[in-house]
């Protein structure tokens, strides 16, 4: 494997790109996808350290994160569909009411 620094920089890059996506994009679907990207950046770190320390626990956590990402995607997309059904939009700045 490469040195841990390589992986740290890779994951940092992905994390920041994800953050920019979350903040700048107006489409909720893209925002959700950016969040998935952030989770993946974290996963890279976890797996890398699991390899470095020779402890498989890091991979176990990465597994949990993937499960969590699946749950999040399912609920998030469900909300998007429900929202789209009512408002015919998936733009964040038009989601300005808690209830109607």
């Amino acid at each position, binding site marked *: 494997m490469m040195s841990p620094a390589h992986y740290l920089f890779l994951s940092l890059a992905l994390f920041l790109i994800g953050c920019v996506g979350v903040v700048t994009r107006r489409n909720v679907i893209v925002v959700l996808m950016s969040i998935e990207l952030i989770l993946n950046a974290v996963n890279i770190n976890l797996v890398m350290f699991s390899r470095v320390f020779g402890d498989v626990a890091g991979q176990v956590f990465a597994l949990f994160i993937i499960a969590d990402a699946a749950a999040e995607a399912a609920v998030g997309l469900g909300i998007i*569909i429900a929202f*789209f*059904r*009512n408002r*015919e939009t998936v733009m964040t700045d038009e989601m300005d009411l808690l209830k109607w």
Partner: protein
Amino acid sequence: MADRVQDDVIRQQQETLLGADELVLNMGPQHPSTHGVLRVKLKLDGERVRGTECVIGYLHRGVEKIAENRTYQQFAPYVDRMDYVAAVSNGLGYCEAVEKLLSVEAPDRAKVIRTILTELQRIASHLLWLGTHALDIGALTPLFYCMREREEILKIFEKYCGARLTTHAFRIGGLQYESYDGFEQDVGRFCNDFERRIQEYVDLLTGNSIWIGRTRNVGVLNAADCIALGATGPILRAAGVKWDLRKAQPYAAYERYQFEIPVGTNGDTYDRYMVRMEEMRQSRLICLQAIENIPAGAIMGKVGKVIKPVPGEVYHSIEAPKGILGYYIVSDGTTQPYRVRIRPPSFVNLQALDKMIRGHLVADVVAVIGTLDIVLGEVDR
């Protein structure tokens, strides 16, 4: 009425899957399962059909108008081009209508041969329907079996009159051709084989749970709706109405033969399938009875070379494979009809399409178009 339609539209809009606009799917005029150049506009909500609109006329040739500029004999081949998979039946209806106008009757021998050929044509038409209907629902194999049997019938036609599809088999007043040597044997051999062959279709389809699932309760049209929409033929009988012109107003030689009118109960696609299958069996029985005893004698009645009916009008209808086929002919005393109006079964039955598929899925659309058994040549004329 208008209010109800408007409410319908509004409700449809509210009901769509995600509140987005309906998906309008243009099925046809070039689509593998619209059986020709039928175009159906489907308003879809997901895969569910919320409304349909039939666009017809792509095959319009003005058959009725052509009739006004042809003599009575000259027009006879044109009717073959309407329902081109059941040309013999079309010809029978037209010839009998003109005979009625002329008040002549075909000789017995001609009537019996007409009956045999028409019943063979009914089997051929139903076979083509069965094959394509099964293909629409995704069963590939029955089509080829059906074509195999239909080929035998077409060979008989070819031997009889030289043509296979648009036969022009009959003439006004009787027949032009005497039946060929071995005609009875050919028909008899076909009928004997056919019993075994029809069992093959039954084995492939009737008990198949996918087939039942695709056809049961799909495209239901009950008796009241059938009558209101003017649907006739197997569609009407599948809804449980025992109405068959061969029994109700016997023409040709039908009153001489024993046969049953099969009827269904639910009026769904499966019932129509069963009714048509049974009709093929009954047609086979009629043919078998008829070849037993073909009366000898002339084949042409007393009709002159120039047909010039007295002024008047006549309506004559027969039970074509697809339903009631009617000819309304007005004569002004010349050699050419003043007006011919044709009541084609496919055209009238097609009305029921919207009623039958509303609320069903896209896949059912092709099943229902198949079960209507339309021929666009006849719808558009």
